[in-house]
């Protein structure tokens, strides 16, 4: 037997929770599934304060944003199933989920895939040696489970994740031996980079990791300088003693379920990989199937939440057909917020990507 819901949301991260928040204002029978023990996705690991305006939860720590969103959800309208993986989508309207009891068939009127992204890997010598971690794993260990994950860390990647996780590791008492970045520029916000530099952490641009070495676990890394064509420059090798190499080398959108649902998938470099084509209200080419958050192109949690709001609004409107002016008014507010968020100087790339996506859709 299959269970039926008005809206099925996959992923209880910022986009999924925001979608449920907006949708539950107008409709009920909403299901959120998430493979983790607790809801919140990346938010629950984010101990840093957010930027932007008040409407973007500025000055609120990610973990607290998560709690605000959760507290706002009505238990009568929204059913949350943790430790539940969405393992397959069968056209036109069936999601298969797996929990401790086994497999279940879920039917939905609308689907919102807020499946996020997965961390990238890079190739270097011995990259499978124990002691090579993704930044997300480090954050989970220290911020969710309260475990000090390492003693001496080298960070690869100077985007926002690399910078913020380095700082959080220092707060947890971990020594950061440096941050290396292959491109000639620091990708993340300068305010984060400045914080690290004030603490004496070197950020080496045009550098990368040649390999990690050790007896059964990481004991040292060798880094080297890169030339203008990203070619290694011989004679610039430096050895750094570490026990952990942390990778913060970008994310790839998780679009597998969208692909199974028949959504049009396009490679858009600015959005970090293959993403699902969607319209201005986050609906894909398959009517009733929505995407929100990193799965629609890697951006930040603030954008993910607004995209979730938008998807939740349209899905609920299509089900309930409530007052059109209420709908248009709320749509306009979310559009305005998204626009103001994306006009920031660091959002040019994402904005260009979203533009390309919309154009290619036509």
């Amino acid at each position, binding site marked *: 037997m299959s269970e039926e819901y008005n809206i099925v949301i996959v992923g209880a991260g910022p986009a999924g929770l925001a979608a449920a928040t907006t949708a539950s204002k107008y409709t009920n029978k909403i299901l959120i599934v998430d493979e983790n023990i607790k809801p919140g996705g990346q938010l629950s690991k984010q101990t840093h304060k957010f930027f932007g305006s008040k409407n973007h939860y500025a000055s609120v720590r990610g973990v607290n944003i998560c709690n605000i969103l959760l507290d706002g959800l009505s238990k009568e309208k929204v059913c949350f199933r943790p430790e539940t993986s969405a393992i*397959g989508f*069968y*056209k036109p309207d*069936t999601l*298969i989920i797996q929990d401790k009891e086994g*497999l279940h*068939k879920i039917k939905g009127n609308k689907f919102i895939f807020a499946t996020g992204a997965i961390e990238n890997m890079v190739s270097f010598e011995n990259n499978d040696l124990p002691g090579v971690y993704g930044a997300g794993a480090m954050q989970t260990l220290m911020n969710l489970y309260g475990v000090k994950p390492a003693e001496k860390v080298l960070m690869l990647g100077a985007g926002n994740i690399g910078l913020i996780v380095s700082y959080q590791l220092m707060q947890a008492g971990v020594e950061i031996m440096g941050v290396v970045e292959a491109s000639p520029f620091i990708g993340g916000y300068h305010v984060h980079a400045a914080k690290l530099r004030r603490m004496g952490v070197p950020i080496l641009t045009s550098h990368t990791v040649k390999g990690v070495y050790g007896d059964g676990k990481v004991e040292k890394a060798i880094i080297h300088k890169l030339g203008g064509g990203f070619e290694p420059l011989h004679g610039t090798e430096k050895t750094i003693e570490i026990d952990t190499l942390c990778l913060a080398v970008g994310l790839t959108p998780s679009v597998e379920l969208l692909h199974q649902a028949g959504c049009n998938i396009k490679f858009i470099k600015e959005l970090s990989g293959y993403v699902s084509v969607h319209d201005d209200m986050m609906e894909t080419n398959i009517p009733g199937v929505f995407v929100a958050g990193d799965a629609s192109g890697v951006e930040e949690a603030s954008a993910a939440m607004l995209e979730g709001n938008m998807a939740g609004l349209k899905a609920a409107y299509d089900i309930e057909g409530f007052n059109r002016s209420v709908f248009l008014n709320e749509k306009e507010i979310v559009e305005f917020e998204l626009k103001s968020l994306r006009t920031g100087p660091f959002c040019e790339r994402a904005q260009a990507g979203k533009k390309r996506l919309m154009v290619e859709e036509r």
Partner: protein
Amino acid sequence: MNKKASVVIIGGGINGCALAYELAKKGVKDVMVIEKNFLASGSTGRCGGGFRQQWSTPMNIKFAMESVDIFSRLDEELQYKTEYYQGGYLILAYTPEEIRQFEKNVRLQREMGLDVRLIEPKECLKIVPDLNIDGVLGATYCKSDGHANPFYVTQAYAKKAKEMGVQFLLDTEVIAIDSHNDRITAVQTDKGKIMTDTVVNAAGGHAHLVSSMLGLDIPVKPYRHEILVTEPVNRIFDPMIISFHYHIYMRQELNGGILMGQGDPNEPSSFNVEGSFDFINQVCKKGMKIMPVLENISVVRQWAGLYAVTPDAQPILGPVPPFDNFIHIVGFSGHGFMLAPRVAQHITDYIVDNKLSDEIKNCSIDRFKNMDLDVDVNVV
């Protein structure tokens, strides 16, 4: 594009490619194969890859025995490794009716010279030690049945055919067939027109569509059959295992992955080739009942393909009136892969020497005028 061809074959599956090769081997020049996707992209590439000789009608048995004989020499003839493997077929009986039918089949098959036996459940365990024999009343076993990789067999034929001058137009779709006074004159594709005086319909699940371009209504309907493959594991069993009772077949590929397939006998005809959850759910439960050891093996992929089914589950071969130059190799009802090597030779004899073999005559479309059909009951 070459605007003329002596023979245009519609469909780049196993039947189309095998025929192209046999024609070229007999010296026919200017053969052209038209395929709307890529080679083996239809039913061939989606099939279980088995070849068996254990059928219930004399024609199918003879056909299959002759095909196996070709299969066994194919790697050498085509200079290609097709993963040909004679691991046998073990067909399980769960009811007294099945046993009675199997006794009849085996008698007929043995009369025709096939080395096949009806065996006790205990003997099944010698062949497949992990088999669950609860409820099994017996089984038929033929050691010379087996399987090959359908992609490789298709490529093997196509590669040799290409070397011998056959042209393959991939990603090309037939949109119309021109005729004049009951003779076909040309095939129109989305990439242009090809003048020809012989057209072969080898379009598998889409055969009816192709024939209907000339206003023909051949009794071939597409039915979805689903299949899955597991992660590769150590060798568990050699033969293809079939149960008509459970509507299931399974075999282990040379790389260790286990294929399991079934068709839903109650599903209506359609062109649907989406995988379904109900299939995965049912076939895994059945599979684990027959082979409990499969319990902890992960499924990595599922897909579906079309059986092109005729009223008597036997193919339609040869010309279809009123066109004597519109030749059909269609309606194999789920066993086109295993019969293709021999069928290609019969059809070649007809095209080249105008020789109508007994097999083609038996499979003529005319048989459907007569109500008393010899239905093969050994279909899964």
